[in-house]
């Protein structure tokens, strides 16, 4: 039997829980979820030039989760980090407007695989010493679902992926994380330091207001060339082609339920 003390007051934290000094939230800049990305005519890649860009929605949930932990007094400081071109500054500013305290951009034009990103983040963790890293379970562009798990492995930290609830177990000085898995919900008791990846139901990120945006402009954002980290970031992967998915044959509209049942029975033979 374990006891759970989740009675807290704003900023005082949870009785008996030693608060987390720093949370690192890696955020990715992706094509906005509402944009239907076209494929280039030469089938080399998708066309993302001039597309509306946003913070990966799962990473936005990660920032919101960190901000809520801070508001509950469970954590003290939140740092967001992005790796990519200059445009990522905008994504970091968005994270700062959501409530993060500071940001780092590791600037590069290189396309990086999840393993490379995990190696970079490991280096950042060693430098910044967060006790918790929260990030999205996947990015909605490459849909890889790898980076958090890889980072946890490289750091030899425990992980809780696909989180839909994070609470504190003060007696054990650990986090309780509910995970969305096939067939139901799994709860883990997670010691710190650790990596958590977020699922959709963890929270609904707040709307940012104009004052939030103004405040965010005054928060520290460090811009550092990725090359200064001196990491070997080669890749064994190459994208040979990008093609549209197979189109389905156009279907037909039916007039009645009876006709539908007839088609399913005698034409499609599926019931």
């Amino acid at each position, binding site marked *: 039997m374990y006891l759970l003390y989740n009675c807290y007051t704003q900023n005082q934290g949870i009785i008996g829980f030693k608060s987390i000094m720093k949370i690192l939230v890696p955020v990715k800049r992706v094509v906005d*979820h509402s944009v*239907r*990305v076209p*494929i280039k005519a030469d089938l080399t890649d*998708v066309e993302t030039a001039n597309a509306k860009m946003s913070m990966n929605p*799962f990473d936005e949930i990660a920032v919101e989760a960190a901000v809520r932990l801070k508001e509950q007094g469970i954590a003290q400081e939140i740092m967001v980090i992005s790796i990519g071109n200059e445009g990522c500054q905008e994504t970091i500013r968005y994270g700062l407007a959501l409530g993060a305290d500071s940001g780092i951009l590791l600037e590069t034009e290189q396309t990086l*695989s*999840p*393993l490379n990103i995990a190696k970079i983040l490991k280096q950042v963790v060693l430098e910044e010493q967060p006790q918790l890293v929260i990030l999205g*379970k*996947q990015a*909605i*562009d*490459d*849909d890889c*679902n*790898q*980076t958090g*798990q890889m980072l*946890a492995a*490289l750091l030899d930290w*425990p*992980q809780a*992926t*696909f989180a*839909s609830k994070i609470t504190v177990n003060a007696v054990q000085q650990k986090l*309780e994380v509910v995970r969305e*898995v*096939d*067939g*139901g*919900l*799994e*709860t*883990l*008791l997670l010691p710190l330091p650790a990596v958590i990846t977020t*699922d959709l*139901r963890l929270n609904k990120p707040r709307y940012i207001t104009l004052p939030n945006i103004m405040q965010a402009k005054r928060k520290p954002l460090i811009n550092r060339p990725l090359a200064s980290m001196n990491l070997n970031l080669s890749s*064994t*992967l*190459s*994208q*040979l082609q*990008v*093609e549209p*998915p197979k189109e*389905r*044959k156009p*279907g037909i*509209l*039916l007039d*009645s*339920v009876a006709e*539908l*049942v007839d*088609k*399913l029975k005698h034409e*499609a033979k*599926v*019931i």
Partner: protein
Amino acid sequence: MAVLVVAEHDNVGLKLSTLTTISAASQLKKPITVLIAGYQCQRAAEQAAKIKGISKVLVADELYYQQPLAETMAALVQQLATNYTHILTPATSYGKNFMPRVAALLDVEQISDICAIIDEQIFKRPIYAGNAIATIQCLAPIKVITVRITGFGLAEASDQVAVIEKLNLKVAEPTVKFIEFATNPTARPELAGAQIIIAGGRGLQSAENFKLIEQLADKLGAAVGATRAAVDASFAPNDYQIGQTGKVVAPELYIAVGISGAIQHIAGMKDSKVIVAINKDPDAPIFKIADYGLVGDLFKLLPELEQILDNES
């Protein structure tokens, strides 16, 4: 050199996702070894030994594999990895959890969610919610792969029985602890292997109305799915969600009720053999991918459908 399939199972039997993954692995035309890590998992191992194309079954039977944690699974697979050219596991919440950890421990890149195998190095996988299919070449010495469970059909049984070998590898006890698994008990088939799926969207309007979907599912012996909108509105539990970030399904028959057809939802079901759409909006994008469409009020059409099915049975 052989190929390793890390099996998803419940100790007494293999999940269908494992049969799909073995089917994918067989395209590599190499001997296949299946790893069963579990607790008192002999029956799952015996089932694996009777599948076509399997040359060996490895069993890691320890209490700490009863609830497979990413930390222990990755440590185990890492110790076996150098004997194989490819390591495959299903791209379900089971495989997605530990496989990238394996890849990072081996310092190789992972290829997620493959839907086709071109050769030993080249694979296809969906990106941008399935709006595009990327062909990826991987030159890593060990290919670490998760398999999209709708892409490959099911491996068949064999009249030969592969050898079962007990492993004696130790991994460190995990620091993370499993507390509980809360499930939604249902007599309906699992979404992943269902022949028929009926899914509801925002058009159902309430959790109460969502029961219409469940009633119809029970008439047809179908599994029940939902869109993100329906799950977010609490019409249906989380693990009903089908789509880019939820489950990926490909049943014989998919009936989409009150679903407009957002690209994120379509990403999870468009490989279904026959798609039926019931929606009041004739311009809903779901009709573009449906084989049969009914435009109208679902609250009138669903009871009618139930009635006809009742009369015929």
